[in-house]
C-alpha cells in the first residue's frame, strides 16, 4: 500500500510543475477547518455541494479516494469517499462496489429517497458494519479520517458510513516490559480495538462495559473507559469520566498525556495511575473493581485507582504457587527499601555514624577507602549518576550497540575505576546492589520515582546523617499518607489499615483464602468466590464437587470454541470507537 501512495504522490508532483503550496483552488484558503463550521454543516440534498465541500476539506490528501457510481437501472449517482491508506480496498470492491454495480434496480426508481438509501443499506451492501442516519459533515469527516467509507446518494440528506478499515498495525506480540514465566504472554498492541478485544476475550461478561470517547482536537484519539458493572463503585466511574471529559488538548499520543492530566496530585513524584501492557493484568484490575482507560495508539492501558503497594505486585504472583509468590513479594519490598535507601544509608553511616558499623567491616571499609579522592557523598553521587547514565544509554542505544555499552560500562565502573583508586570497591557494591534492587520493582513508573527520590535522600544523608535520612523518609511518608489516587488513600491497606486486605499486600494468600475483593475499592458485591474452596481430601466434609453447590460453569458459553484461537480479524472488523459500534444497523 505504501508504494501505491508514494507513486501517486510522485505523479501528482510531476503533473503540476508550479510547485507545491497553496496555489491550488481551496475553498478554505489554507485555513484550518474550523470545528464550528464542521459541526453545523449538514449534508446537502445536492451531491455536488457535498462533493465540493468534502474535496475542499480533504482533497489535498494523496490518499483520498472518491468514486462515483451510476448503478444500472437507476438514475441516481452514488458517491464513495474514503482514505485508501486506512480503508480495506479489497473489502470495498467486494462488499460495496460489486453489489452496487451488479444489482439491478428494476422497479425501485420511484421509491422515496429515504427508502432508496435504506435499500442500499439493507439489501445491497454486504459489509458487516454500517452506520446509517448520518446527517452532518462532522460525523462524515470523523469517520473518513478513521478509515470508514462514506457513501452519499444524490438527492439524499443522509450518508452511510461503512466500516471497512485496514491500516498497518502491529499484531499482538509477546509482552516486553512485564515478562512472566508462568502466565499468558500476550500483550496489548497499538490499536484500541485489538486491545478491547483482548480484554473482552478474557472477560466475557455482559457486565464488562467499554465506553468510548474521543480525545484530542486534532488527533481524535479513541479512548475507552472500561469497568465491570456491579463490581466497580459507580462514583469511581463517574469521577474517571468527569476527569477525562475535562481534557481538551490538541493531541493524545500516549497514555502519559492522560495520566498527567487526570492524576490527583500534579506535583507528586509518585505515580497515581497504574499502567500495564498485559491484558490479563488489566482484567484482574477490572475484577478488583478498578477502572481502566484504553487509549488508541499505545499498548499501555491505564488503570485507577492504585495504591503504593499495588505497584510491587506482578501478575505472576497470582499464577505461581503462593509460597513462592509470598517470598518473592517480601523480597521485592526489601528491594524497594534497598533501592531507596542503601546509598544514603551508606553515606550517612560512613561519614557520621562510624560506631554503628561492625568493627571488622569498618576496618575493611577504611582499608578500601584509603586513597579514594572523593568524599563518600560525591563518590556515591558520581557512581549513581554513572549507573543511571549507563542504564539510559542501554535503553536508547540501538540494540546492536547496547551490548558493547554494557561491557564498557561494567569494565569502566567495575574494574578500572576501582583499580585506579578513584572509587572504593564497596561503593561499587552499593551501587550495583541498588541497581539490582531497583530492577526488582515490577512497576517501572514506581521504580523511576524511587530512583529519583534516592538522590535527595543522599544529599540529606550527606548533610545531616541518619537524622537527615529519617527526615527525608518522614517527609515522604507524610506526603504519601496524604496522597490519594482517585479517592483511594495511597498507602491503602496499611494506612488506613484494612486487615482483610493485607492478605494480598506483603503476602499472597492462596486463592482459596482470597474470599473478598479489596475492601478499599469495592463497597458492594464483595464476595469474589464461594466461601469454602479450600481443597479437602474426599470423605472429609464431602467431596470437592459438593463444596460448591452452585454450578460454577454456568457462565461460560458453550460456544467458547467460536472465540477460541483465531482472532485474526480483530483489528479490521471492529468500528473505531467502541461506542459507535452500537449504532450500527442490522442487516
Amino acid at each position, binding site marked *: 500500500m505504501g508504494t501505491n501512495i508514494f507513486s501517486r504522490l510522485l505523479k501528482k508532483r510531476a503533473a503540476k510543475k508550479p510547485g507545491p503550496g497553496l496555489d491550488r483552488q481551496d475553498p478554505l484558503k489554507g485555513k484550518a477547518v474550523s470545528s464550528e463550521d464542521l459541526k453545523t454543516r449538514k449534508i446537502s440534498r445536492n451531491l455536488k455541494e457535498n462533493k465540493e465541500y468534502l474535496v475542499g476539506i480533504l482533497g489535498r490528501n494523496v490518499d483520498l479516494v472518491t468514486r462515483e457510481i451510476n448503478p444500472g437501472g437507476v438514475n441516481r449517482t452514488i458517491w464513495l469517499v474514503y482514505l485508501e491508506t486506512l480503508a480495506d480496498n479489497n473489502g470495498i470492491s467486494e462488499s460495496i462496489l460489486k453489489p452496487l454495480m451488479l444489482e439491478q434496480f428494476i422497479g425501485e426508481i420511484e421509491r422515496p429517497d429515504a427508502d432508496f438509501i435504506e435499500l442500499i443499506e439493507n439489501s445491497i451492501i454486504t459489509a458487516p458494519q454500517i452506520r446509517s442516519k448520518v446527517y452532518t459533515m462532522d460525523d462524515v469527516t470523523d469517520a473518513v479520517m478513521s478509515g470508514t467509507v462514506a457513501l452519499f446518494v444524490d438527492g439524499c440528506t443522509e450518508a452511510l458510513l461503512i466500516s471497512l478499515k485496514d491500516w498497518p498495525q502491529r499484531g499482538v506480540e509477546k509482552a516486553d516490559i512485564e515478562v512472566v514465566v508462568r502466565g499468558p504472554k500476550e500483550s496489548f498492541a497499538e490499536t484500541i480495538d485489538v486491545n478491547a478485544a483482548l480484554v473482552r476475550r478474557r472477560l466475557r461478561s455482559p457486565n464488562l462495559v467499554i465506553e468510548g470517547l474521543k480525545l484530542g482536537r486534532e488527533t481524535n484519539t479513541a479512548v475507552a473507559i472500561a469497568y465491570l458493572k456491579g463490581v466497580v463503585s459507580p462514583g469511581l466511574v463517574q469521577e474517571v469520566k468527569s476527569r477525562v471529559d475535562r481534557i481538551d488538548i490538541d493531541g493524545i499520543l500516549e497514555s502519559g498525556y492522560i495520566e498527567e492530566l487526570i492524576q490527583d496530585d500534579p*506535583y507528586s513524584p509518585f505515580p497515581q495511575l497504574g499502567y500495564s501492557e498485559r491484558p490479563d493484568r488489566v482484567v484482574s484490575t477490572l475484577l478488583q473493581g478498578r477502572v481502566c482507560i484504553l487509549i488508541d495508539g499505545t499498548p499501555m492501558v491505564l488503570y485507577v485507582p492504585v495504591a503504593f503497594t499495588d505497584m510491587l505486585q506482578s501478575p505472576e504472583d497470582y499464577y505461581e504457587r503462593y509460597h513462592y509468590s509470598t517470598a518473592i513479594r517480601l523480597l521485592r519490598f526489601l528491594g524497594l527499601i534497598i533501592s531507596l535507601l542503601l546509598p544514603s544509608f551508606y553515606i550517612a553511616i*560512613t*561519614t*557520621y555514624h*562510624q*560506631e554503628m558499623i561492625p*568493627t571488622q567491616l*569498618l*576496618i*575493611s*571499609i*577504611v*582499608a*578500601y*577507602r*584509603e*586513597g*579514594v579522592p572523593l*568524599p*563518600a557523598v560525591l563518590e556515591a553521587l558520581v557512581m549513581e549518576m554513572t549507573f543511571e547514565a549507563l542504564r539510559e544509554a542501554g535503553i536508547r542505544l540501538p540494540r546492536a550497540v547496547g551490548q558493547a555499552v554494557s561491557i564498557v560500562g561494567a569494565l569502566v565502573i567495575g574494574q578500572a575505576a*576501582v*583499580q*585506579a*583508586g578513584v572509587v572504593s*570497591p564497596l561503593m561499587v557494591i552499593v551501587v550495583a546492589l541498588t541497581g539490582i534492587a531497583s530492577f526488582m520493582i515490577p512497576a517501572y513508573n514506581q521504580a523511576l520515582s524511587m530512583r529519583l527520590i534516592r538522590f535527595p535522600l543522599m*544529599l*540529606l544523608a*550527606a*548533610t*545531616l*546523617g541518619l537524622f*537527615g535520612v529519617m527526615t527525608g523518609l518522614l517527609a515522604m511518608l507524610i506526603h504519601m499518607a496524604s496522597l490519594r489516587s482517585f479517592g483511594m488513600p495511597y498507602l491503602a491497606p496499611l494506612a488506613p489499615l484494612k486487615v482483610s486486605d493485607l492478605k494480598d499486600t506483603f503476602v499472597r494468600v492462596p486463592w482459596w483464602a482470597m474470599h473478598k475483593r479489596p475492601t478499599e475499592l469495592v463497597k458492594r458485591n464483595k464476595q469474589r468466590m464461594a466461601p469454602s474452596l479450600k481443597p479437602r481430601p474426599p470423605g472429609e466434609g464431602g467431596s470437592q464437587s459438593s463444596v460448591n453447590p452452585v454450578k460454577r460453569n454456568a457462565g461460560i458459553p458453550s460456544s467458547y470454541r467460536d472465540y477460541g484461537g483465531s482472532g485474526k480479524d480483530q483489528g479490521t472488523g471492529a468500528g473505531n470507537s467502541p461506542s459507535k459500534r452500537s449504532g450500527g444497523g442490522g442487516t
Partner: protein
Amino acid sequence: MGLNFKKKVMLLLIITWLLSLTGCWDHLEVERLGIIGIIALDQAPEGKLRVTVQIINPKVLAGGGQVGGAGGMSAYARPYRNVSAEGNTIMECIRLLSLHAPYRLFFAHNQTILISEELARNRDIEKIVDFFDRNQQFRRNNYVLVSRSDISSVMGLPGETQVPATQRIPSIIRQQYLSSFYPNVQLGDFLENLECDGRDVYAMGIQVEPNEAEVREQLAGESDGNAEEQRTKTIGMLVKVGGTAVFKGNRMAGWLNERESRGLLWVKGQVNGGVITVPCFPEQTPGQNKSVSMEILRNKSRIQPEFIDGELSVIVKIDVVATVQEVLCMVELEQPAFIESIEEALAGAIQTEVEAALAKAQHEYQSDIFGFGEVVHRKYPAIWKELKPDWAEIYRNLPVYLEIDARIRRTGLITKPVEVHR
C-alpha cells in the same frame, strides 16, 4: 496547603540552603579515623598517667594490600601501631596523642581497657573509670583487664604475627566459658559493681608468657645440633588471660589464681563451662591416673543471707550440671551408684574452689567481690544501715555455708571406658 507553587518552591530552596549552612559540621570520612582497639593505662613518673593506644592499620588487617597498590606497603607492615602519651588525666593524654596521630582517634570500636597492676594498686579506680563512664565513645562491652606483665609487652609482642593484641585479647575472652578460669568483666558490669553499695570490683587478669612449645623447639634444636638454625628464632611470647584482679574499695588488693577465680564464679553462678577432674573413687587422689573429667554445662547460684539471733550468716546454694567427658578408670558408668559418687566428688571439688576463693577474699583481701553486702542490704535494709559502718569487719568473719547440688547429665557416646582385651 495554602501555599501557592512559587512559595512552595521558595520554601524548598530555603531549606536546601539551610542544609548547606548547618550540615556537615561533624562530618568525618571513614578513612580519616584512627580506629583504636586497645587503650592501656600505666603508671608514669611523678604520679602521672601513661595512656597507650593501639591504632589499627586497616590496610594490613583487611588484607587490602592488593587494593590499587596505593601506599606501597613494605613487606613488614604491621597491622597496628602503638602510641602513648603522659599526662594527669586520660583525656589530657588522648589530646596529646593528637600531636602525632595523623588520624582522628576513634574509640567507639575499642574493645579492651588494660590497666597495669602498678596503676591499679596506686591510683584510685574511680579516678580511672570516670573518663570511660563519661565519654560517649566507649561502649559498655569493653573488657576490663589488669595486666600482670608490662603493658608494652602485652600490646606489642604478639602483634608481630598476624593477629594484633586488639583482636587477640577479645578473641581469647570470647572463649572464657571454656575454662571459667577468669571472670568475664565488661565495662558496664565493672561500673555497676563499682557504684553498687555492698560490692567490691574485680577485673580480668592478663599476662605475657613465653610460648612453651617454642621453648621446647629451641631446646630440642640445641640437642639435635641444629643450634645455629634454632638460635636465630626468637621465642614467641603468648598473651594469657587468667585469674582475677581483686579490688578492695578503690585500690587493687591482690590476685585470685585460676581455681580461685572459678570459685568466685561458682558463687556468682557464672560458670558456664570448664573442666573439673575428680578421682574415680573417694579414697584416691587425682594424680593416680584414675580420674574422671567432667565438663560443666551450666551453673546457677543463690545467695541467701540469714539473720538469726543477731548472728548474720550467708547460705550460698550452687546448682551445677555437668557431663562426663573423660574416664580413666574401669567403671560401669550406667551404674547409678557410681554416678552418685562422682557427683559427690564433683560437689566436693567445687566446694574446695569456692572455699579457696572465700578464704582469699574474706581474710586476705577483705574484699566483698561476691556482693554479700548487697544481698544483705536487699533482704535486711534496716539492719544493713547499722551494719554498714562495720561491714569490713563483719564481712571478714561472715560465716558462709555452701549447699552444692551437682548433677551429671550425660556420659558421652560410650558407657564403658575403652579397654584393651588381651
